[in-house]
């Protein structure tokens, strides 16, 4: 009601990982303040790493996230290898890509089916959705299980893999182990196509945004483990120059740092950014399906990211099959290296987007410096901007619906504030109408 200040509180917004709150101050003239408040305590991983051996970084950083530990391991490995001048052989590189495929599959399917899809169908959670759409959840679980199987085979276990090390792997499974996964991958591929078609038919709010998309780019393949950092607005840099172009800043309402492109501001990382920048590198089959469904890149509606995630799952399954079919065992499971005083950095594409690591070590190989920039901190400012730009178009909605839409807008990003059970509180404050 105009003339009265209103506050809406949602105590438990589930299906978001981490502890945070959202504050929006608006009136009939527009949105005045949007704050994605992250009050989860800092986790001090960069400090924990100091003094630890460089070989421990992949296993320690994997603990940052239970859903995308492979991403943390891969960025740490590549950064250490960059520091030590180690270049993995092609077979090792392919195995790492295969492991990453597994993680994309499992992480994306978790988000699509358990966290995001209920939003579109009006269910409070996946269990409620499963009562009416059991086939969707069953399909998703089957696909996710395939991703888990890949991670288990190469990583030694499904969660927090233990088989990767600087230089390669502790042990490389034999060809027969990979081939044994083929039937499961093929079945998952069929299911993923069905899932993509289903997701493309969901009702999407009209919400076209204008993003600076940032992702790794590699002319020969869809990006996972390496590439230059590029954007759709002309950025094209080597990973080593990341910190010359990106800056983290403290904001009062968040314990997580906001990352900005210097002199340009907010940017988008994640599946949509990758999709928009590397669409030609997707397989012909994935592109054909995307085009048939009317989802050709670029995609700038964040609500449609659910379809992009499905297409990335389909691609990851195809890529996993290709890597298995062309599997060449490495001569050695890992390349040996001696520590020395050095520093290095790397970025890889976590399911949620660009993940940057930089380390320095002393001559004994003890870590003296660590910097980790996670995808969610890079997207925080963009999430706030989405809300700021989106809200005026939906002011006509009843407050409860508007609130639901804000929650959905946050979930578009699959934000991973931390890896424990926490919830997000939403406060919408409607200010009195101003009389000009």
């Amino acid at each position: 009601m105009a003339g009265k200040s209103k506050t809406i509180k949602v105590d438990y917004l589930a299906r978001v990982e981490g502890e945070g709150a959202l504050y929006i101050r608006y009136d009939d003239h527009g949105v005045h303040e949007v704050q994605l408040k992250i009050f989860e305590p800092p986790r001090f991983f960069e400090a924990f790493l100091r003094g630890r051996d460089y070989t421990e970084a992949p296993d320690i950083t994997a603990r940052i996230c239970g859903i995308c530990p492979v991403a943390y391991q891969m960025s740490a490995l590549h950064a250490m290898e960059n520091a030590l001048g180690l270049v993995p052989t092609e077979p090792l590189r392919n195995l790492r890509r295969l492991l990453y495929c597994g993680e994309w599959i499992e992480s994306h399917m978790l988000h699509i089916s358990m966290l995001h899809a209920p939003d579109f169908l009006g269910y409070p959670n996946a269990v409620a959705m499963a009562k009416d759409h059991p086939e969707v959840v069953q399909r998703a679980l089957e696909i996710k299980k395939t991703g888990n199987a890949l991670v288990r085979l190469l990583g030694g276990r499904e969660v927090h893999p233990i088989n990767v090390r600087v230089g390669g792997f502790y042990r490389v499974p034999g060809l027969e182990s990979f081939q044994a996964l083929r039937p499961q991958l093929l079945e998952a591929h069929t299911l993923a196509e069905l899932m993509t078609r289903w997701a493309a038919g969901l009702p999407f709010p009209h919400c076209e945004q204008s993003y600076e998309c940032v992702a790794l780019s590699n002319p020969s393949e869809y990006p996972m483990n390496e590439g230059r950092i590029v954007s759709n607005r002309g950025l094209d840099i080597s990973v080593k120059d990341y910190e010359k172009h990106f800056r983290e800043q403290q904001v009062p309402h968040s314990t997580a740092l906001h990352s900005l492109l210097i002199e340009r501001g907010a940017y988008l990382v994640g599946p949509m950014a990758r999709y928009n920048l590397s669409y030609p590198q997707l397989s012909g089959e994935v592109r054909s399906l995307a085009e048939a469904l009317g989802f050709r890149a670029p995609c700038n509606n964040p609500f449609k990211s659910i379809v992009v995630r499905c297409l990335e799952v389909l691609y990851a399954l195809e890529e996993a099959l290709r890597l298995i079919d062309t599997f060449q065992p490495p001569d050695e499971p890992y390349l040996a290296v001696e520590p020395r005083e050095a520093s290095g950095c790397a970025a890889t594409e976590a399911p949620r987007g660009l993940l940057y690591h930089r380390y320095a070590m002393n001559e004994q190989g003890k870590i003296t410096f660590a910097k980790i920039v996670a995808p969610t901190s890079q997207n925080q400012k963009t999430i706030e901007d989405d809300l700021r730009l989106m809200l005026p178009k939906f002011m006509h909605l009843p407050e409860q619906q508007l609130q639901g839409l804000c929650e959905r807008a946050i979930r578009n990003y699959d934000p991973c504030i931390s890896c424990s059970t926490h919830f997000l509180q939403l406060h919408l404050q409607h200010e009195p109408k101003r009389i000009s």
Partner: protein
Amino acid sequence: MSQKESPERWLLVSLGNRFRGDDGVGPYLLDKLRSQLKGSADFLESGNDMVTLVGHWKDRQVCLVDAILSDEQKSGELIRADGLADIIAPSNCTTSSHGFNLREAVDLGRVLGALPRRLEIFSICAENITSCDCLTAAVKLGAERAEQELLAFLQGDNGQS
């Protein structure tokens, strides 16, 4: 987990984080039991990903080991529950990922017809869950008792009931 899963064999699942003190009692027990039950049970260190459990436990006989925090029980104390017959205690629902916990995993399994045939929950009361990779003395002692009880249970029960 073994590549040759058998519905007749027990699937032992641990929840919890090895690097969070007593929260690691589940993985600790799994390590101890793996060598003693080699070949006769399957093992899954699940961390906090409950969705994975739903994908694995359908029609299996599952024994789940987890740490819990309780104001009413002593550190190291073992609490057993039937996960299918009993209401799962809130203390067993604090481990989760993306807000999806054990109770929701059971609910989802029920909706999808993907429940385990049996779900035996062994919970050990934790004392310290800060960052470290060791158990407190009370929980270690409790883990030894739990190990014996688990062994007796699994070896005395062929899972055919």
